[in-house]
């Protein structure tokens, strides 16, 4: 073993208790950073994945980006008329089949059409307002995860009777309706029809499961009195991260409003960025606190060892040698602490991942965590850096010591 290592090792060995406390400090810092990062990034990943799964990556609607200009505005640029009846624009994507066909030509992903409607659902004397979504079971499958959320029946069950409906499981429970129950739907357009419940689904989102029913496109069009028109095209892109770019091109091409999931969830995504800033601040603070322990032990050792340092310097040891002794001690504490921190951090993460958990919005059983080597390396780098910085200042002070000052004082 080299001279510097021998002396450094002797120092830390003879101060076992303090050294262990400092190592424990670094270990705890690294472990909790790793665990925090695994938890934060895990839940974030899971959240985005759920979001990306649950939402269409791109939604094309007939809304224009600006309110439509009324005839009077078009004729008189700066006029304002009172008492005029606004022009009723028939909403919806006209000629949907042609639009879909032209998009299918270049959009990398799957497309499906839907019709949004609202209706009062009546069953056994109960009335509930629900969102009715008309879908095409053949293509819905490729765009949304609805099919995998079916509890009873399937998407194709919608073909079983002329007016069939799939209900959210909470909605069905609220109504007391079961498969094959006959319910009544009354739309705002004044259409009333009888429908048969052919299945239930459970998406995991309470709001959806409580207030949504799926019907065939045709059924929804009847409720809306709009045969041949749909009001949303949903797209599942092959690469969700490309959605924003693709949506812009769709908007340009069709003139309809195309919104990517990133745009739709802008607030959430910026909240996630904020959360990341928060996470790295906390992780950094933990490691900083741990480095105080290292600083403490190294400065204690140099303080207790002033006499030895004077002796070594009087023997002819160079400043650099003295400095490296204490920096190596700091590195030793940092490295050992980090190594134990990996183990503890991993175990903590495992423990966290195995916890049963219930959130109000959905029903995951386990806390999602993400194991990433990046977290371990980052925590180690910060721990080592802060240890070395914490060791450097006492080490430099020690090396600058004048041996005569100590020797004069001692004799």
């Amino acid at each position, binding site marked *: 073993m080299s001279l510097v290592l021998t002396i450094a090792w*002797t120092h830390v060995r003879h101060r076992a208790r303090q050294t262990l406390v400092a190592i424990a400090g670094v270990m705890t810092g690294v472990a909790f950073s790793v665990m925090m990062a695994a938890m934060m990034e895990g839940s974030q990943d899971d959240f985005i994945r759920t979001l990306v799964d649950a939402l269409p990556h791109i939604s094309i609607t007939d809304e224009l980006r600006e309110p439509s200009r009324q005839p009077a505005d078009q004729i008189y640029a700066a006029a304002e008329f009172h008492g005029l009846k606004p022009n009723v624009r028939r909403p919806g994507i006209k000629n949907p089949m042609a639009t879909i066909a032209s998009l299918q030509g270049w959009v990398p992903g799957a497309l499906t059409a839907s019709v949004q409607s609202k209706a009062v659902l009546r069953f056994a004397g109960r009335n509930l307002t629900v969102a009715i979504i008309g879908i095409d079971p053949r293509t819905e499958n490729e765009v949304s995860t609805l099919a995998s959320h079916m509890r009873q029946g399937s998407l194709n069950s919608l073909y079983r009777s002329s007016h069939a409906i799939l209900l959210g499981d909470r909605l069905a429970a609220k109504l007391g309706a079961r498969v094959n129950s006959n319910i009544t739907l009354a739309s705002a357009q004044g259409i009333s029809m009888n429908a048969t419940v052919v299945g239930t689904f459970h998406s995991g989102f309470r709001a959806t499961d409580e207030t949504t029913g799926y019907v065939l496109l045709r059924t929804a069009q009847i409720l809306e009195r709009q045969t041949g028109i749909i009001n949303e095209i949903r797209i599942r892109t092959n690469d969700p991260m490309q959605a924003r770019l693709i949506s812009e091109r769709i908007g340009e091409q069709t003139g309809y409003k195309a919104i990517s999931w990133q745009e739709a969830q802008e607030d959430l995504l910026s909240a996630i960025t904020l959360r990341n800033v928060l996470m790295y601040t906390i992780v950094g603070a933990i490691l900083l606190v741990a480095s105080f322990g290292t600083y403490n032990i190294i400065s204690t050792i140099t303080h207790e060892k002033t006499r030895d340092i004077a002796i070594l310097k*009087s*023997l*002819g*040891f160079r400043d650099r040698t003295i400095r490296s002794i204490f920096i190596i001690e700091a590195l030793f504490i940092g490295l050992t602490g980090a190594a134990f921190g990996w183990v503890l951090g991993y175990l903590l993460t495992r423990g966290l991942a195995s916890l049963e958990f219930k959130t109000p919005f959905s029903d995951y059983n386990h806390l999602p965590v993400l194991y990433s080597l990046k977290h371990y390396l980052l925590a180690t780098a910060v721990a080592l850096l802060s240890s070395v910085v914490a060791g450097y200042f006492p080490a430099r002070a020690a090396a600058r010591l004048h041996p005569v000052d100590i020797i004069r004082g*001692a004799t």
Partner: protein
Amino acid sequence: MSPPLIEARQVTRILPGEVPVTLVADINLAIGAREFIAITGPSGSGKSSLLYLLGLLDLPTRGDVLIDGRSTTAMTEDERAEMRLSRLGFVFQFHFLLPEFSITENVALPMRALGRLSARGITQRAEELLASLGLADHLRKTPDKLSGGQRQRVAVARALANDPPVILADEPTGSLDTAATAQVFGILRDLVIMRGKTVVAVTHDLNLAAQMQRRVHIVDGRLADDVQAQPPVR
């Protein structure tokens, strides 16, 4: 003719401060090979201060200290450290050994810092040095397990580790009883006679000083007397 091993030229050391303290003033001194020199003087006269200057532990405010004819005030701190390591050996009144290391390791330290010998050669030489000073039975002990006289002999062994031509000792027997004093003094004298070293020792003990070949007397930081009592040891 080869230059003196150590030469002080007009060495003055003033401690700066509100009231500057003059430790030594205008010292001229040449120390040759195979000399056995006593530095004497009243308490507080500046004997230790002079020894630190001669041993490159301190820097003169004015003047220069030459080792082997080379000016040391012009050297860098690292070069002076190298000089201390290879050309000078120090023995203090208190042994100043590292408490956590065995005495063999203590003696090995300067050799390891110099790095001229192999690890095995270093241990071997450390053990030989200690054995030659009557410590063969204590090689694995830490300093706290030894008597004062034994520790001071370890300090001498450490000073000899890199085989420097000069040993500087600041009251090496100051904290020892009569028997131990006689033994350590005998060892220092043997260094001159048997090994051809030069030994410069600060001492209060006029009895001891009387047995030394040359006596340098310091009063108030100035060289008051420099007598060759006997011809140099040959």
